[in-house]
């Protein structure tokens, strides 16, 4: 079975002044794949996500989605079909759970200002459809009972779920998850795994940044490792786990007994 390429990243480089945060990274994500992106803190993973979603304009390189090069404008990237969540939760705190998801639906609804003001049938239908779709996503993520709660009053784990529901509301073909299990306990992490599989079963590809190795290796078809802005290896679990550069990056160089101190694990 050949998978069609959804996301095609070529040679993306991001420099901030003299600092190269992301250096010549290539990455592809195929239809229906779950791809992991791991690396030590400060490796440039989130910067890479920001380049993909148009929040940063890459210094070099291109990001294509379904064969078209994406313009570095976040709202156009979303419209093209890429949605994301954030490492530090960024919900609209003063809106209800349902309203957050409705905002996520923005690109997939059309509403003429005039038809809204006149409350024409088109407006009513669009509004009803949006609510129905939003409620379906809240059911999917298990938040339906809390649709009318203010999002800032949700417990942490549910806020993470709401971010995912909001991202799914834009009907993406590719979902980028930035550390979805950060701060979660083991049970919540297992539930998050189930959720990611369920998202894939809806036909949505997933690119996920994580620190939890078990989570990554349970989920991902392939995993890429980013160290100091460079992709040093990409492949399945065995390839990544047996790669010496990965071990060095995570655990430091092995102690060779000659007295020269191995560099400390860079956590």
């Amino acid at each position, binding site marked *: 079975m050949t998978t069609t390429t959804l996301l095609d990243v070529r040679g993306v480089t991001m420099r901030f002044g003299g600092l190269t945060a992301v250096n010549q990274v290539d990455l592809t994500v195929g239809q229906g794949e779950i791809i992991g992106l791991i690396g030590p803190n400060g490796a440039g993973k989130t910067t890479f996500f920001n380049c993909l979603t*148009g*929040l940063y304009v890459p210094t070099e390189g291109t990001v294509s989605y379904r064969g078209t090069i994406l313009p570095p404008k*976040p*709202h156009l990237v*979303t419209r093209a079909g890429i949605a994301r969540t954030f490492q530090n939760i960024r919900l609209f705190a*003063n809106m209800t759970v349902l309203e957050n998801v409705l905002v996520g639906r923005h690109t997939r609804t059309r509403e003429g*200002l005039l038809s*809204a003001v006149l409350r024409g049938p088109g407006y009513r239908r*669009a*509004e009803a459809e949006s609510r129905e779709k939003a409620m379906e996503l809240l059911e999917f993520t298990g938040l339906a009972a809390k649709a009318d709660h203010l999002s800032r009053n949700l417990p942490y784990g549910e806020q993470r779920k709401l971010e995912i529901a909001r991202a799914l509301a834009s009907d993406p073909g590719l979902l980028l998850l930035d550390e979805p299990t950060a701060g979660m306990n083991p049970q919540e992490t297992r539930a998050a795994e189930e959720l990611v599989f369920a998202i894939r079963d809806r036909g949505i590809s997933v690119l996920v940044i994580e620190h939890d190795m078990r989570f990554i290796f349970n989920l991902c078809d392939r995993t890429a490792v980013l160290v100091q802005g460079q992709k040093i290896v990409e492949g399945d679990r065995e390839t990544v786990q047996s790669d010496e550069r990965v071990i060095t990056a995570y655990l430091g160089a092995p102690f060779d007994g000659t007295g020269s101190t191995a560099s400390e694990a860079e956590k």
Partner: protein
Amino acid sequence: MNELPQQLANGLILGALYGLVAIGYTMVYGIVQLINFAHGEIFMVGGFGALTAYLALPGGTTLWLAVPLMLAAGITVSTLVAVGAERFAYRPLRGAPRLAPLITAIGLSIVLQQLVFSFYPDAKKAKVFPKIPGDAFQVLGMTIQRSDLFLIVAAPVCMIILGWFVNRTRSGRAMQATSQDPDTAKLMGIDTDRIIVLAFAIGAAFAAVAAVAYGLRTGQVDFRMGFILGLKAFTAAVLGGIGNIYGAMVGGLVLGLAEGLATAYIQHLPGMHLFGGGAWKDVWAFVLLIVVLLARPQGLLGERVADRA
């Protein structure tokens, strides 16, 4: 004191005028954290737009026809000027330090005043604006001028439409999202540049409605009229809690009432006989602002929010 109902009515009418203009300050601030000091002049050009439409109409046109046309013209002129200002003066400075757009706003305000002063025919002195003729109404001991009826109807209608727009429509939700977190809003597919234009346009349209009301009420428009009224409306926005649209109207009404009541009654307080009357009304307005801000720095309906850097 049997003139109390009258003073309340005067205060509320004036306050509604402040409130309509204050909406423009508060919406723009809520979205881009900019105090648009040119907003008073957006109000002023709306008045001149309406006047131009009136002068273009054949003499003897009934006001039932003239007022809607004046309103349409005023709204068009104000909105075009505000959207143009956003596009060519403020947008290039997006991301610049905050003082840059603030100074630009002050500059723009002077430019607009001088353009009207220099190029609008005979605008060096106040221009006569039509009034709605006929006797004043007597209601519950209050005398209401016919010209004020326009504002009494327009202000609540505008507020209801705005509240519904912001809370119930897709664009309104996009506007709230942009005001809470612009970057995330972009990633939800919201074209935030468009939302900013929309905020400027709505504020300008409300200012134009206020300008027509002001013209009808005072019987004149003048190129300086945006200055003190803009300052008062800005005060109202801060008083109500800047960034909050209902706060803007509440702040306007409170300010108008305070001015009306202070003008009428302060001089009757013992030892205060020198401080009453219209000449002191601006002083009392700003005293009220200071007192409220001492107790509630976020304004009457404002929420305490961390200042974004």
